[in-house]
């Protein structure tokens, strides 16, 4: 399958995403410059982490107006698969392709840690290679990852199973200490109501090789490969 990895000015993890998909997984993955208006025939679009436009105003607030985002929005509206990690998640929220918003970590500090997340819904294109309740060890590195959404929206998201990943401790239990950034409902990753757009603060693209600390990130990408078929 074909993967288009968007590079905005200030993207950082586009190279790692291409490496994970191309060199590690043998997929056809290519860069899409943010000024392009087509997606190169991609089956899945990846919005990588970084600090697009220097995070000016709010994280993701400027990047959502990049020319390519119109095509990404149309692609998503047509049912295309879109995944955003970290800054990509922030951009998807700002673009209203995902509910909610990401704001300053409750600690006010940048957090760079390997965390445990629990797969809450394994019946989606982004998690189908995992088991429900499976624990994944993934790195996070962000200053603004505290997920917020209006209460009624949160309730609907929980009912529909849109919360795909939640921060938990090493035993898989929710705890305040395990929720490092203070996200509402300990949310680490959410999908839209149609389950074709997914955003997560952890970085699956940084967890694809055992010698670099683990391969749990492959679960996410393998799920997408399986669902595209």
């Amino acid at each position, binding site marked *: 399958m074909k993967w288009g990895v968007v590079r905005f000015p200030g993207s950082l993890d586009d190279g790692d995403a291409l490496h994970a998909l191309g060199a590690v997984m043998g997929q056809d993955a290519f860069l899409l410059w943010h000024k392009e208006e087509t997606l190169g025939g991609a089956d899945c679009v990846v919005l990588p982490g970084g600090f697009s436009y220097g995070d000016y105003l709010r994280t993701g607030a400027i990047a959502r107006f990049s020319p390519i985002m119109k095509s990404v929005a149309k692609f998503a509206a047509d049912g295309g698969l879109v995944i955003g990690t970290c800054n990509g998640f922030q951009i998807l929220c*700002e673009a209203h392709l995902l509910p909610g918003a990401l704001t*300053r970590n*409750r600690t006010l500090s940048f957090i760079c840690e390997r965390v445990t997340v629990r797969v809450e819904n394994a019946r989606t294109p982004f998690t189908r290679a995992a088991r429900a309740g499976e624990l994944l060890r993934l790195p996070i590195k962000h200053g603004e990852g*505290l997920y*917020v959404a*209006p209460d009624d929206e949160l309730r609907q998201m929980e009912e529909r199973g849109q919360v795909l990943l939640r921060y938990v401790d090493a035993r898989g239990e929710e705890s305040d200490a395990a929720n490092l950034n203070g996200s509402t409902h300990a949310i680490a990753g959410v999908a839209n109501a149609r389950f074709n757009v997914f955003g997560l603060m952890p970085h699956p693209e940084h967890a694809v090789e055992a010698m670099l600390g683990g391969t749990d990130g492959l679960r996410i990408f393998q799920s997408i490969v399986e669902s595209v078929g």
Partner: protein
Amino acid sequence: MQVKVFVTPRVGILDPQGRAVEHALKSLGFTGASDVKVGKYIVLEVDAPSSAQARAEVKRMCEQLLANPIIEDFRFEVEGE
């Protein structure tokens, strides 16, 4: 005309910056300080034939870009009003 836009964390949304500043103020002895919010102050010039039209335009700017209504409230002042 000049417009001043004030963007603040939405009421009910956790504002860790405001809380940290409040804590620091209290530790300096300003025990009367409470409900501190840290936000943004944006100044811009708007070319519009009337302040009413400037107001309408700035409202759209706030809704589309300057503030995120999920986490932020905004208000603004138009010069000469």
